[in-house]
């Protein structure tokens, strides 16, 4: 217990402290040189504001679509054989970069979807709305949420649904009073993980995202590429913003889930 907790605590706190330090101090600087210059530069940079808005939009849309898609997929897979369930879970172990490779192959201009359909109505890859990024996340995360939700759709849920049916509950009533309470907790937890991942989004926007706006993580990466000294501080500050957002979102989601349960 102690080694595990110690390791996690030291490195989790270490990463945060390290990033905080870089955001206030140039690398190798003394504590006396600390200044909020990087934070001021960050908040006055219009590109950061764009990155923040873009990241939040991608996160919100991908999380909602992945949650809805995941529940629908779980309902379709429910009670089916192992083979079909494995197919439904296929994208879960596949790394994001591979899904992004597939997205470029299929959805890029002149890609296979273009060739099959004649022409796609929209630019999906590297479009400024981030549709390509969202598509990759939903494709990868909806099956993940489906897996979590399916775990609660066992025999005992079937039994409760049948009992509700015997008492005359219709389809909608069964969904609201039997199915929803059973799947709510894994759905919220899964969505929190998906959202946290999308907020930290890095390799997916680098491959299928637009050149501008960046996400918070790619903004940080680009900052370190441009200006080595001042860029590091701004990158650290931007990454800390994304970390705080992910944690705050998780706290709100867990609280919401709990208060629904209480009421």
């Amino acid at each position: 217990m102690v080694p595990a907790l110690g390791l996690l605590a030291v490195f989790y706190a270490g990463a945060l402290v390290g990033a905080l330090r870089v955001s206030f101090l140039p690398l190798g600087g003394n504590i006396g040189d600390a200044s909020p210059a990087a934070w001021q530069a960050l908040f006055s940079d219009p590109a950061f504001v764009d990155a923040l808005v873009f990241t939040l939009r991608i996160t919100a849309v991908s999380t909602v679509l992945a949650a809805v898609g995941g529940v629908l997929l779980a309902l379709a897979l429910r009670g089916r054989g192992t083979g079909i369930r494995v197919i439904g879970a296929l994208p879960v172990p596949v790394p994001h970069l591979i899904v992004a490779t597939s997205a470029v192959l299929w959805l890029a201009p002149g890609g296979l979807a273009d060739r099959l359909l004649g022409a796609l109505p929209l630019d999906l890859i590297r479009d400024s709305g981030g549709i390509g990024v969202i598509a990759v996340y939903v494709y990868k995360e909806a099956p993940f949420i489906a897996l979590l939700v399916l775990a609660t759709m066992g025999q005992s849920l079937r039994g409760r649904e049948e009992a509700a049916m015997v008492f005359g509950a219709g389809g909608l009533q069964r969904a609201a009073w039997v199915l929803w309470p059973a799947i709510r907790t894994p759905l919220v937890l899964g969505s929190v993980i998906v959202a946290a991942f999308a907020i930290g989004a890095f390799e997916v926007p680098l491959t299928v995202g637009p050149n501008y706006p960046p996400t918070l993580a790619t903004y940080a990466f680009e900052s370190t590429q441009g200006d080595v000294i001042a860029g590091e501080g701004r990158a650290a500050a931007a990454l800390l913003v994304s970390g705080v957002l992910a944690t705050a979102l998780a706290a709100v989601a867990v609280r919401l889930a709990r208060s629904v349960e209480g009421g």
Partner: protein
Amino acid sequence: MAEPLRQRLTQAVLVGLFVVPLAVIALQAVADSWRAPSLLPQQLGWRGFEVAFGTGGAASAIVNSLAVALLTTAICLLVGWPAARALGGRLLPRNGLIALLIALPLLMPTYLAGFGLTEWFIRLGIDGTLAGLVLAHVVLALPYAILILLSGFNRTVDELEEMASTTGAGPLRRLLWVTLPSMRPALGAAALLSFLVSWSQYGSSLAVGAGRSTLPIVMLPFVRSDPQVGAAFAVLFVVPALIALTFAARSQRSPL
């Protein structure tokens, strides 16, 4: 709709959605020429793999990635086991709080984790080393390992161990004959996830690695610039993940 027809329809939709798009990557990897509007490649060949292993540096990247992922997995299981055991056995007060603390790193963006750790790793002289990469990956993978192992340590395991000790089995025999076999599914799942988290890691490796190549790092530029090479990398990238998945699936078979 008749049930068998509906079932077959679901199956077809899922295959079309999940199997075909990913399988076509393998075709693209060996498509030396595949111009629009053709739906099939005009010419097959090994250019993708030649570039991947040539200028792409795939060989050393694979070795690095495998070493880091296997070490990460081993450390996660060794360190995660006693932690999950203590949490699952409810030996501690405030279990919920501890579980929350363990889950916190799951919410940390990976690039932030790597970026913050680099600051320390430079001082320790381990930035850009395998040890640095393994440490950063362990921080990100260990929470998953603990949470999965935790789900394995349940009443049944406790009862089996108790039975074994009343029949006179010592601690070592209990571990080998009772605890490990009954924990096999959880161990398999925890190992798989630790391996995959490390194997697919991009953000933290980019920050901590200081140019040391892992497979995702060397692959990414090609996905944008040369899709055939990107696809060849994707094939190299997915095979170990599928092997790990097969091993994990075998460990899920009922052990007792």
